[in-house]
């Protein structure tokens, strides 16, 4: 029951946290910035609207947003929030989840290619490229977690006290894991320094340019989907940097939400202090995450035994 509630809570909170990032950036920019509820307004507005479809598009263009949102929902169902067990969990669900996100990506790209727009094609190419390395990183981290816990499910990794167990087992190298995970978070959700959601030049975009032609509820789906995706990654980081659990659900929840805030602020800060990399520099940046994860895994599994 609690898990279902938490699931709904997560869906509700995701847009809010994304707004936090905007606030932080505005603060660094010395501006007042949009209200914290901005994303809710946007979603509602979009849901009210109708849509304009390009004559080049096919059904795939309409399916895309649904699949990506669907993937995000499904993933969240397996995610233990605030240390509480998730709605669903089974041996090997992690792999399924990563591939579901892959499915979502496939359809986002397909929808973009559907419009026959050169710019969206460009964005799609990048969307197809960078996550390859991210997946490698994530699987690296999975291997570490698996060998420590002997389990292959998010529940086993991020419920109650387990994250603390990681720290005991792996020790210092886990720092690298956190860092790697954070980089993956930035890449997968196309944040600065990989991609700049706020830029106005389509040539330099990744995610934003792909959804140029979406409008109305479809676009709302996409937005919500990306919020949830970000929430998913942020949760994992959060549980790792703050593994403590008092045992009382409410208290845990509070701690969790607070730490989440910290993570989002961190994202915002990164976006504010860093500039977007040149496209050909990005792979190196993402590759560092893989290097870190690889290092951490091998060190902690082969030498720290």
């Amino acid at each position: 029951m609690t898990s279902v509630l938490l699931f709904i809570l997560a869906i509700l909170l995701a847009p809010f946290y994304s707004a936090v990032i905007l606030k932080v950036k505005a603060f660094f920019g010395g501006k007042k910035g949009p209200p914290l509820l901005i994303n809710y307004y946007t979603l509602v507005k979009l849901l009210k609207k109708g849509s304009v479809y390009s004559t080049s598009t096919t059904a795939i263009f309409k399916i895309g947003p649904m699949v990506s949102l669907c993937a995000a929902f499904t993933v969240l169902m397996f995610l233990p929030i605030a240390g509480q067990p998730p709605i669903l969990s089974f041996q090997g669900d992690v792999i399924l989840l990563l591939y579901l996100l892959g499915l979502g990506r496939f359809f986002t790209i397909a929808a973009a290619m559907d419009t026959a727009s050169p710019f969206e094609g460009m964005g799609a190419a990048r969307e197809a490229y960078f996550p390859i390395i991210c997946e490698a990183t994530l699987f690296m981290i999975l291997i570490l977690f698996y060998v420590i816990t002997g389990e292959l499910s998010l529940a086993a990794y991020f419920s109650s006290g387990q994250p603390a167990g990681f720290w005991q087992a792996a020790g210092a190298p886990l720092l690298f894991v956190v860092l790697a995970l954070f980089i993956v978070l930035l890449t997968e959700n196309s944040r600065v320094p990989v991609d700049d959601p706020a830029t106005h030049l389509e040539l330099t975009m990744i995610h934003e340019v792909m959804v140029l032609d979406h409008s109305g509820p479809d676009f709302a789906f996409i937005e919500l989907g990306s919020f949830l995706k970000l929430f998913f990654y942020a949760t994992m980081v959060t549980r790792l940097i703050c593994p403590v659990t008092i045992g009382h659900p409410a208290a845990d929840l509070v701690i969790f939400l607070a730490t989440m805030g910290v993570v989002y602020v961190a994202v915002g800060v990164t976006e504010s202090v860093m500039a977007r990399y040149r496209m050909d520099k990005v792979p190196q940046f993402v590759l560092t995450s893989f290097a870190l994860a690889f290092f951490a895994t091998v060190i902690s599994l082969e030498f720290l035994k």
Partner: protein
Amino acid sequence: MLAINPFFLAVGIILGSGILPLLFLWRRFVLMKAVASFGITAGCLIGLIDAILKLSHGVDWASSASYLHAFRLAFHMDGLSAFFLMAIFLVSLLAAVYSYHYMDDAQKTIRVAVHYLFFSLLVASMALVVTAANMITFMLCWEIMSLSSFFLVVYNYENDGNRKAGYLYFIFSQVGAMVILAAFGVIYSHAASFGFEGAAALPETAKLLVFVLAFIGFGSKAGVFPFHVWLPHAHPAAPSHISAIMSGVMIKCGIYGILRIYALLGWHTPLSGYIVLVAGMISGILGVVYALGQHDIKRLLAYHSVENIGIILIGIGLGMVGVAAGNPVMALLGFGGGLLHVLNHAIFKSLLFMGAGMVLHKTGTRTIDVLGGVIKKMPITGTTFLIGSLAICGLPPFNGFVSEFMIYIGGFRGAALGQADFALSLLAIVSLAVIGGLALACFTKVMGVVFQGEPRSRAAEAVNEKGTSMITPMVVLAGACLVIGVFPGVFAGMALKAAEALQLGYGRVPLAPFMQLTGNITLGALLFFTVLVSILVLRIFLYRGKSVTASGTWGCGFTQPTARMQYTGSSYAGSILEFFGPLAPLEENHPPIEGRFPAKTYYQSHVHDIAERHMQGVIVSPVLAAFDKLRWLQHGDIHLYIGYILLAIVVLLFFV
């Protein structure tokens, strides 16, 4: 006894309906096609049912006939054979149906008839290869398989490229066969019988030799890097349903050979696993990288066969490591996953080749970058191709995911073993992930450039989707992808039954734990669908009474976009290929743009296959040079000719 055996009945029917057209039917084109394709279909159906029954009931049967007085032609079907037979007959069946409308050039009546002869020969020989129970029988069927497939490759010999492809394939298959023969020879030299039974008693070193030789020989048929050179040439050259068979099942005979030899040797050392694993990873990654760089859709699919063979080998390799480490679950996950992927790849690869064949047949071109927007005119082809793409990328809820899932879990088990096993399993997992990502990039490219967007040329505009016999198989295969993807239980069970036949010494495999895994997949898939449906409902609700208008794509401020401005496949893959530069040297060629009013320019790019490059430099040229040095021996002067004779005598007299 042979006559009533359903297996031989099936083979007989197939052969018969292949020979029939050439005998007298070739004057009546349509009738000939109908008889041939129907006959082959019927034969395959019988064989398929027989194989499935044998597999589910786990019946072993053997039968043999005297051959040249002193020897026997022996056949034996166990779980492994039955499993491969299932794949072979399934794909061949659909290919036969497909061929009816695909081979519609009434000018080439005789050639089509010949094609059906070799088609049937190929199917029959493949079926016999996977049931052959001694060396003579095996080599016999194997060589017939190579020969018949060769003739199918050079079907369109007017095209120079196809001739080159045929030649390459001919050489590789013959050399491969010789290497296999050598492997058998080593077995024979110790066992002193043409049966396979003696293999288990070989000394360790001999086993290593046999395994390596066999792996090279069978690998060259399966398309393992670096013996895959012939594959991307030969598969596109053949007619599309033949490409489907070759890519879908013929190369799997190589996998079968490797598995069979492993089972026969009973050589349960980690070394074998390591060899297979490494080969698998390299083939997997390089295969998909080269695929990304292709401009020819069938060539691209051919390279994906190399990739998938790599995945299969990773699975098998993990299995072998598991056996060596005494870890039954890992072993069965590895072998089971690998075997299941054999079936899955057979299904979605033939689906993809048939789709590509449809496009080729209607547009007359295989070049990706001149196509586009095909899906609007070919909805069924497009949709099935999309499903195939999702499946080959290993995405849920389609069949590709299931096998990769099993292999992944096997890999994780291996990672827990430590030391070399840990390192290799870790690499295996990572390379699987990378392969998945790259495959996704590659097939979004194919879908996006070929089927979606706007047509880039006349050829791509004027298309239709006629030919029921071509559409039906694609629909069936797409259905199979989904069914296996959502309800993998029974199929995984079959794969495990096949793995039992490898004599890993586990006896009957308890299916429960694996069924639980597959059950989870079903659960996940169903969950996914429920969510999707609910979102769909939500969407319908949201769009109720909304204004939905159509307009042009937003050109980002550019007002006159043309179809040729779309992102091409080359540019789509460009940045990824740069990343793999050293492994896949990219050769570009475009004249610089000069002057205020630049002339019409062009851009060409070609990705070199390093194996192909080095084969020329390292093997072919030196051999030619070495033999060239000896050609003066035949210089035409009779005096020295007589000198040779004297020389021979004198030399020999020293040994008397």
